[in-house]
């Protein structure tokens, strides 16, 4: 069972939860189980081709799975996944809310 941290933009699709759990031996399997449990996430997470949405970054133990093995990246018991939106940055914006 892997834990998945949900970004604020996706929380309405998972009943407001900050973190959910899902089974699966790969990142793709874990996310598919997430989508089965919370169907409203499908359109946000995946494109029509079944690949990750371009603006969705998924991290396994802090590392972006796109530069690992993508959706085929192996997931171990107790691993943590984090879903984050891709955002502009890199300019030392130092914003204050």
């Amino acid at each position, binding site marked *: 069972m892997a834990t998945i941290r949900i970004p604020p933009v996706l929380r309405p699709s998972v009943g407001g939860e900050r973190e959910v759990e899902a089974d699966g031996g790969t990142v793709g399997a874990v996310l598919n189980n997430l989508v089965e449990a919370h169907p409203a996430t499908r359109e946000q997470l995946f494109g029509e081709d079944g690949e990750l949405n371009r603006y969705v970054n998924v991290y396994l133990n802090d590392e972006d799975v796109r530069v690992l093995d993508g959706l085929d990246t192996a997931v171990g018991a107790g691993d943590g996944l984090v879903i984050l939106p891709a955002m502009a940055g890199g300019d030392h914006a130092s*914003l204050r*809310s």
Partner: protein
Amino acid sequence: MAVPPIERRPCAGRYTDLVDSIGNTPLIELKRLSPKPGVRIWAKLESMNPTGSIKDRVAKSLIENAEEKGLISPGQTILEPTSGNTGISLAMICARKGYPLKVVMPDNVTPERTQLLKMYGAEIVYSPGDQGSNGAVAMALDMAADDASYYMPYQYGNEANPRAHYEGTAVEILDELDGNVDAFVAGLGTGGTLMGVARRFKEELGDRVTIVAAEPMQGEPVQGLRSLDDGFIPPIIDLSLLDRKIFVTNRDAVVWTRRLLDEEGLFAGVSSGAIARVAVRIASEMDHGNVVFIVCDDGWKYLSSGLYTLPVDEVENLESTVWW
């Protein structure tokens, strides 16, 4: 009595213009950060550029590239979405070269940014703060589309950005270490540093070098997108050039910014702390070799946050600030 020649770079060099002195920054070994005797960690001090950041290289490249292509001439207004170091670098260079500069930035930036930009004579147009950098990019693109008299370098999509590092930063590192680079770590923002250095290193060193991106995990208060489709990926980024991509939380970034100061005496900005954290993680996975990381800027612009003197838990707005 004859004066011995100065051999140590970057002290060497005499320039007739401040802009020409950009680059040739020092590479400093940080022995206390190294987790193993056989692994050497080197910091490339981009904070030593004239306005104090790596963006001096980028701004110089963007402007000179446009000049070489005949796209701009003195008197023409330059427009760029930037709330940070690129704006400050552009402001200095545009002031030196005679280009009025208009910067689009979110309305919730720290006071240091506004002062530095105004100091160099830039005009500031504010975008909605709750939309972060994405909002500034969108507004600047709209302004450029509506008024053809603007020239927008657009660092997120301009190959002159990575080229500054392909032709400058990467070459300097290779020279200083005689090509013995095993891992390179830089921050992922526009992607310019990583793309430029990665291309040069992969060409020169092949797969012996690991290219690692450190990226910010923005705090939840600034993840305010309405939809994941509102995300943004700078067009110059080619993920295939990266071997690893690791995020760093704001808290860890601040903790490691303090470690750079406390353990190595290095007064650096917050992104450099995050990058150092990833560099040490990569170093701990190696048995021997050289790890090079980028110190993007110094700490002056972050002083008002109190992060260098307060306990980390007392730093205000830790999660609601876009630190880098």
